[in-house]
């Protein structure tokens, strides 16, 4: 086999492996951020329900609608609001939103009780709750 070809193949494989490892690591770090570390949410977002779920979305988010439906079904007595992260970059940065949907659950005072990332994160959260 031509050594030049082989080295190109190795290079492509290494780039793909490193790319997916970096991506998965950053996702794991994002998923493990603890809710308590975040400052309270602005009260303008919080409704007077016992708890409010704030979904950070983006205009092209594929799974945000499904996550919103699932939250409304699982917690009918709690409020669900959407925040477009592209319209509120400051807020998205404060809650370290790296991926849509990132979901925060807050009490009446806006204190962050839980932080859930992605549809599979929500499914895990519902299974534990």
């Amino acid at each position: 086999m031509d050594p030049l070809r082989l080295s190109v193949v190795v290079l492509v494989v290494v780039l793909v492996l490193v790319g997916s490892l970096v991506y998965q690591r950053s996702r794991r770090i994002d998923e493990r951020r603890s809710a308590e570390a975040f400052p309270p949410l602005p009260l303008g977002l919080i409704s007077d329900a016992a708890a409010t779920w704030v979904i950070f979305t983006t205009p092209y988010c594929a799974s945000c609608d499904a996550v919103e439906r699932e939250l409304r079904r699982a917690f009918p007595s709690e409020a669900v609001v959407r925040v477009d992260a592209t319209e509120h970059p400051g807020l998205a940065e404060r809650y370290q939103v790296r991926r849509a949907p990132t979901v925060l659950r807050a009490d009446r005072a806006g204190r962050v009780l839980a932080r859930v990332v992605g549809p599979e994160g929500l499914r895990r959260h519902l299974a534990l709750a």
Partner: protein
Amino acid sequence: MARSAPRPIDPRGPRFNQAVLAIALLAGFALDQRWVVPVWAAVLFLGAAFGPAYGPFLRLYAEVIRPRLRPPAQLEDPRPPRFAASIGVAFLAAASISFAAGAVAVGWALALIVAALAGLAALSGICVGCELYLFVARRRGVELVG
């Protein structure tokens, strides 16, 4: 394009297809087997144009591999991966034309781009073509299923 929303699919089907595609293209390049490129252009075209039942490796996954696995944790809209596959078809067709025209380096460069993107999608789920579909679909107001 169909008007009604399609049935959601097991996302591991396209992932399997992407994995085989990446390996086949890299092996084809390593061993200088140019026929791999037009063959895979055709394989991807069948699945992208007529649906997963017509893509040879999508079919292999659905009929042979999937029954041996646990049911999928989630289902996915089939349109983004189909759109991504059609971008792959365009690249591989361009690569095949380059080979035919004698521009071998250009042909392999295009094929290796497809191999890298397919490998990334298979390993991590980052599907660049799917993201493009979502971008276009949202502008047109397409409702996604899954």
